């Protein structure tokens, strides 16, 4: 079935993308494909590189290898049917995308969320954030060549996933939010387990710092690598830890507060070095800040319904448009929904933070070593299905 596709590959000039990248073979430089199957690209990302020895002269990511038609499905699904898709856009922080979509439709349809549901949303989303940062940390260190930290990271991740499984029913691609609240209440087992988890996670973080963050090899691999200045961030629309690692304290939870985040006391970590190490430190600090938010949310968790009893199951918002944005582990997620008054959206646009964050890779990696490019990619914290949607 795919023989016609492989016949289109000219062995020396490559396929469509390599042909557009470089006219033909060159005596001085090497055209190298990194991916789409590669252990360090965190998914099916392909980067076509022009190399001079170990140095990258030009790089161009090629996308679309996991394009799963999410925006087309948005137009084909009733509003409630689209939630499972949100879990699969960025499966590492599925609840952030759940939230962005729920928030957009609730705003369009005028559905209110009771206070307990808001707190449950915060608790589950922050736990998901810690889970995501732990996996990022383990995978990043794995890319740089160390196998042990990911084993530690997954131990904590399994703890979080067991807790979230109590209330959501899933381990990974959560579909916990619904219009007007969440789908299940927090049980005493969940609350006690989360309190115990906060304690245990706090006791693990110093070990991570001593074992990994202060490690000389990591510092050499991350410091002064991939320097992103403010102008570059603005031109490409970089958000999240990629932006905060360059000194800009812009976090959607403070910038455009949604839900009850205004009631919590937490800091926005930033780093002024603008390099991969800065982004690394920002994410590690964000784990501590998320634990703080979790603690406060559990203490302040109000009683009441976990979902608005008057929220309709068949949502039919009045015609209009809305853009709702939340902070995911990767940056500013935006869900833009246009409604024409029917039971399916007219248009759903998913603004993925990784899309904008990766678009600066071509400019950022010119002139770096290939090993440093791997470090840069890891520091951007990419989830490719979010880029391809």
């Amino acid at each position: 079935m795919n023989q016609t596709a492989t016949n289109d590959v000219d062995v020396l000039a490559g396929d469509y993308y390599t042909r557009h990248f470089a006219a033909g073979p060159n005596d001085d430089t090497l055209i190298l494909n990194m991916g789409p199957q590669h252990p360090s690209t965190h998914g099916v990302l392909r980067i076509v590189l022009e190399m001079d020895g170990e140095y990258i002269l030009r790089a161009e990511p090629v996308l679309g290898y996991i394009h799963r038609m999410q925006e087309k499905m948005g137009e084909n699904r009733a509003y409630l049917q689209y939630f499972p898709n949100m879990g699969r856009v960025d499966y590492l922080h599925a609840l952030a995308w759940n939230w962005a979509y729920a928030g957009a439709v609730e705003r369009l349809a005028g559905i209110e969320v009771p206070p307990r549901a808001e707190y449950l949303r915060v608790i589950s989303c922050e736990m998901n954030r810690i889970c995501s940062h732990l996996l990022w940390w383990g995978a990043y260190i794995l890319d740089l060549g160390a196998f042990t930290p990911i084993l530690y990271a997954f131990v904590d991740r399994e703890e979080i996933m067991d807790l979230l499984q109590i209330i959501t029913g899933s381990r990974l691609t959560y579909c916990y939010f619904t219009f007007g609240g969440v789908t299940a209440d927090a049980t005493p087992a969940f609350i006690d387990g989360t309190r115990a988890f906060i304690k245990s996670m706090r006791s693990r973080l110093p070990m991570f710092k001593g074992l990994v963050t202060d490690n000389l090899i990591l510092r050499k691999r991350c410091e002064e690598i991939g320097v992103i200045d403010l102008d570059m961030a603005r031109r490409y629309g970089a958000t999240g830890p990629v932006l905060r690692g360059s000194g800009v304290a812009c976090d959607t939870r403070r910038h455009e507060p949604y839900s009850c985040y205004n009631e919590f006391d937490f800091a926005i970590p930033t780093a002024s070095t603008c390099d991969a190490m800065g982004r690394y430190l920002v994410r590690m600090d964000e784990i501590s800040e998320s634990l703080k938010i979790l603690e406060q949310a559990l203490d302040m968790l109000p009683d009441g319904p976990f979902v608005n009893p008057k929220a309709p199951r068949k949502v039919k918002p009045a015609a209009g448009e809305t853009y709702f944005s939340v902070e995911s582990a990767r940056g500013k997620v935006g869900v833009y929904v246009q409604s024409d008054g029917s039971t399916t959206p007219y248009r759903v646009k998913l603004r993925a933070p990784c899309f904008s964050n990766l678009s600066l890779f071509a400019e950022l990696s010119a002139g770096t070593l290939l090993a440093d490019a791997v470090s840069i990619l890891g520091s951007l914290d990419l989830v490719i299905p979010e880029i391809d949607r």
Partner: protein
Amino acid sequence: MIPACLAGLAHARTVDSATARTGFTTNLALEPAAVHDAAAALYKAGYFLECISGADFAEGFEVLYTFDRFEKPERVALRTLAPHDAPVVPTIADIFHGALWHERECFDFYGVRFEGHPSLLPLLLPDDMELRPLVKAPEARKSREAIVFQTPAPPAAADSAGEKAAADPEAKAKAKAAALAKAKAKAAKTASETAQAAGGDPA
């Protein structure tokens, strides 16, 4: 609310929208020719490019640009319309380099060509695919006026529709009668089936 940098923009039509509902502080509809200057003004004023997305309306393909600021929330939405038969919009990729990819994605999904874009290759779709997936069938397109420009006040609380039906006794009675009739017909059907089965049993 139009930021100072965009004041005096040619042919701008302000979308009078309730910002609490749309999330846009500024919502302007421009001619395609004005987009490049607007983007340049926003770049100079310190905005960042958040997103470029397309939509397919009866009037044409709409390209929506959203910009925001890092220091304070101020989402500026610029929208422009390109006709279905010749969708061409000038690029802003020379000012905001992030647009290089956003515009390629728009081209993938809608076929909108961005004039001046250095390499308008397919980004997400296979290179041999000719289908423009998000282009709607002509009969499924709705008017931009209803969705974008006329943004009514948010609807009352979700149960208002139910309350309305309850308040309308005629509709309620009709619905009840219809449900009763349906139930009767179903009961009659099952009764006749059991009678047949009983009749068909050998004595």
